[in-house]
């Protein structure tokens, strides 16, 4: 009885389902079937090639090849660019020189740490060289052999001497620009602010590097004082440093042009006046 009731309750929907199934005879056209199945077969043939390509040599070894290419690029840069090779050695000892350098008291000096590194670095290449510019700053009254011996001694003791140097002198040496215009700018500013010691170092360095003679009056005024030996060592370093840069600089880099010469003369005159004023005071 209960089962009959369930059958009766299911009857209306079952009748509809039966009627629907009886009428559900529509099928897609055969041409449509063939098109779809053909598309499926075509896709089946193409799929393995597209989805799973065999890794080629370049893909398989891509990390090793990229690393090797990077190494070759860096090595090539060092081989083709000797300046990088030369400057790499001083940079290795840069931290020691930075520890020795005094605290910069101006923003300009603080912004030029790179100039300090070559000064503080050991310079074996420069020590072995001889150049006309070096001979020009040697003391005239000293025999060549004795002068050379003294230069070697000074070069060996440079680090120890610099440690004893006055902070302002160290700053002046450390912040020296390499190009003549920069050095002249520096000299101008030193004269203007009254840093005559720094100006004197700059003048002597420029005169040495460019084989310029100083007026007698100015030469006397710039006569070395009690720290003459220290400044002399610094000048030796400046010379040697300039020789290093001559490797890559043109030959006429050590010659002042007309404008620079005029500017040099004017600065000498100003420095002379400043020294006289200071002496009068």
């Amino acid at each position, binding site marked *: 009885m209960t089962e009959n009731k369930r059958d009766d309750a299911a009857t*209306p*929907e079952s*009748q*509809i*389902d039966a*009627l*629907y*199934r*009886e*009428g*559900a005879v*529509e*099928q*897609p*056209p055969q041409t*449509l*079937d063939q*098109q*779809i*199945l053909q*598309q*499926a*077969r075509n*896709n*089946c043939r193409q*799929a*393995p090639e*597209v*989805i799973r390509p065999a890794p080629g040599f370049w893909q398989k070894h891509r990390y090793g090849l990229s690393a090797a290419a990077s190494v070759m690029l860096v090595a090539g840069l060092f081989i083709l660019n000797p300046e990088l090779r030369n400057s790499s050695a001083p940079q290795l000892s840069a931290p020691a020189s930075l520890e020795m350098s005094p605290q910069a008291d101006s923003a300009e000096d603080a912004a030029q740490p790179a100039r300090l590194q070559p000064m503080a670095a050991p310079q074996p290449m420069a020590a072995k060289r001889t150049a006309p510019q070096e001979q020009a700053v040697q003391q005239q009254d000293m025999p060549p052999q004795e002068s050379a011996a003294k230069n070697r001694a000074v070069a060996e003791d440079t680090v120890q001497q610099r440690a004893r140097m006055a902070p302002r002198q160290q700053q002046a040496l450390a912040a020296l620009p390499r190009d003549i215009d920069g050095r002249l700018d520096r000299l101008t500013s030193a004269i203007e602010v009254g840093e005559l010691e720094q100006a004197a170092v700059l003048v002597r360095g420029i005169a040495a590097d460019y084989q310029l003679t100083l007026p007698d009056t100015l030469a006397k005024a710039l006569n070395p004082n009690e720290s003459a030996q220290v400044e002399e060592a610094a000048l030796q370093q400046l010379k040697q440093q300039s020789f290093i840069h001559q490797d890559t600089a043109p030959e006429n880099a050590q010659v002042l042009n007309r404008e620079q010469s005029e500017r040099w003369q004017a600065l000498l005159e100003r420095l002379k006046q400043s020294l006289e004023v200071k002496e009068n005071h």
Partner: protein
Amino acid sequence: MELQRQTGMPSGEDETWMLAYAAGDAQAFERLYLKHKGGLYRYFVRQLSDMTLAEDLYQETWSRVIKAAQSYQASAKFTTWLYRIAHNLLIDHVRAVKPVDSLSIDEDEPDAQANLVGPQTAEPDSELLRSRQVAWLKECIGLLPQVQKEAFLLNQESGLTAQLISEVAGATLEATKSRIRYAYQSLRDCLGRKTQESIE
């Protein structure tokens, strides 16, 4: 079976065939196609008056299945996936909902349908009447609201449960159940009325 074990696949043969096809077995797709082609075809034909459009959408559905085979993952039932594609294509092309003509839905009288399809008892040996009823049912299905029609067709053709139909149609389970229930009720009313009209 080996493939199922390797991929942690569900047990359905449809999913197995689909993965086999993705692995390069064209015969697996053919089996899959033969199994589902009629139901999917009628899913479109019964909902669209334009036969050409229905065939285009039917072909486009299979085309998408073929293209997506390589990325197919048996995380869902294949039939659900197939009819979901079909549903999306359908709603992209057919936005308008056709109203049911003069079909009333009276939820307060759930037993009112009794023996509305019963004229065959009045005419026991009527093959002609049976074939007429089949034709009337098709007409009545065409008169159903779109959402009820789709729910009814998915129920009939895909064999999906109400839960899976709701996933295909993007509706809640309760709404899907209601749609199916109303569809049956409307069809009973429609068939009863047509039967009555034929007797008169």
